[in-house]
């Protein structure tokens, strides 16, 4: 498709306000869990009349500077394992290119409905597996009353850190252990492929760094920002080369998201790592529902099941979109709630300490 033939929309005040808001909420979630705030933006822009490829390109163009700012911020808090981030980021770049190729192939063979079905099915499969895993882990921690305790390294991660026959290894200061290079390749590749498919590689990257490599969840979420930066920069170059980036859209979203991402990053200093899992699981489960209910629409459009009435199709699309928005809002509310309660608890602690000193 020739970029010059694409329509870069006129931005109205309403559109700008909406993008600023969605950008802020998305940034808040990304700053906290490292990813997961951008998936609403592409459909949101498309609903304004932005062509699909321009929406994807502009979304990616706002993601890499956002991830850069957040990664620097969380690096200051000591949350980032730069080595793991760069290594996974490079293999994620390969996964992204491969994922984009698969997407293109499906679109050529089955058209838009096939492409949409593939994306939704990928969402459902990945979120059903990874989301359930994260949710079960968070629930178990809650039931055991272990939400305040230090995180345990999983059995799988211990095996990965100790296995000797997987070839050369490198030291991860996040995991405080040596990790085989070979294990990082499929994780990075899957993260990139998922990012190219559903725009949120972190749904695989963060849990994999935590459960497979053994990084604490707080560090996994921050390290994901380094991966997001590398992937985002690569994606922006690719789409920019094609002339698909609408810089106005990208910078408007960035304007809102940087306010959010700073706040989300500050939030991580007040909460227990358990909260990262809670936010991630809540978003994943809601997005899973959102994508699952739309699948029959695409199956119907492909003629693989009986035709669904137009009114039902429109209704399902609306419901699906708003559940997605709700997923983001729920995540943002949990982040804000945790931040406020964490700040209050910290202020009370400081006040009590000051009183003790005065009494002494």
């Amino acid at each position: 498709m020739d970029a010059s033939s694409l329509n870069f929309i006129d931005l109205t005040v309403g559109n700008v306000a909406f993008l600023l808001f969605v950008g802020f909420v998305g940034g808040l979630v990304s700053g906290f869990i490292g990813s997961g705030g951008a998936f609403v933006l592409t459909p949101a822009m498309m609903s304004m009349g932005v062509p699909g490829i321009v929406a994807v390109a502009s979304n990616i163009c706002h993601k890499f500077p956002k991830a850069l700012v957040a990664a620097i911020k969380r690096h200051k808090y000591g949350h980032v394992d730069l080595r793991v981030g760069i290594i996974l980021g490079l293999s994620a770049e390969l996964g992204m290119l491969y994922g984009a190729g698969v997407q293109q192939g499906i679109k050529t063979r089955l058209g838009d409905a096939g492409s949409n079905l593939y994306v939704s099915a990928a969402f459902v499969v990945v979120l059903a597996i990874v989301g359930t895993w994260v949710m079960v882990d968070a629930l178990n921690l809650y039931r055991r009353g272990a939400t305040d305790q230090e995180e345990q390294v999983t059995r799988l991660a211990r095996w990965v850190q100790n296995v000797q026959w997987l070839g050369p290894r490198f030291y991860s200061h996040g995991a405080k252990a040596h990790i085989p290079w070979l294990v990082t390749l499929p994780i990075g590749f899957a993260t990139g492929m998922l990012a190219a498919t559903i725009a949120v590689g972190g749904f695989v990257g963060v849990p994999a760094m935590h459960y497979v490599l053994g990084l604490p969840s707080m560090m996994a979420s921050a390290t994901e920002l380094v991966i997001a930066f590398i992937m985002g920069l690569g994606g922006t170059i690719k789409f920019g080369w094609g002339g698909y980036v609408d810089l106005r859209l990208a910078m408007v979203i960035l304007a809102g998201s940087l306010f959010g991402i700073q706040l989300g990053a500050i939030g991580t200093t007040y909460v227990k790592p358990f909260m990262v899992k809670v936010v991630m699981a809540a978003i994943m489960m809601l997005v899973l529902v959102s994508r699952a209910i739309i699948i029959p629409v695409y199956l119907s459009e492909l003629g693989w099941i009986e035709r669904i009435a137009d009114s039902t199709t429109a209704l399902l699309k609306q419901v699906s979109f708003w559940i997605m928005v709700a997923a983001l809002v729920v995540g943002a509310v949990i982040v804000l709630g945790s931040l406020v309660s964490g700040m209050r608890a910290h202020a009370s602690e400081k006040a009590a300490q000051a009183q003790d000193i005065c009494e002494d």
Partner: protein
Amino acid sequence: MKWIKFLAFGAIVAGLYGMLFAFEADVIRLCKQGGWYFLFPVGVAFVFSYFHGAFTGMFWDVLGVQAKQSK
């Protein structure tokens, strides 16, 4: 000093966004060029992230929302 820096960065950010929309037609034209013109959106994004990133950090700081100091 904190306030002066905050206001200076705020003014720069406002200026950057003002220019983005004042030269909207040129921005769109350059973005659509493709090829090596990809450097334009990438470069602009870096510049915006530097100034706006610093500004938003100071914004929450000025409002009293600061990271918890580790002991």
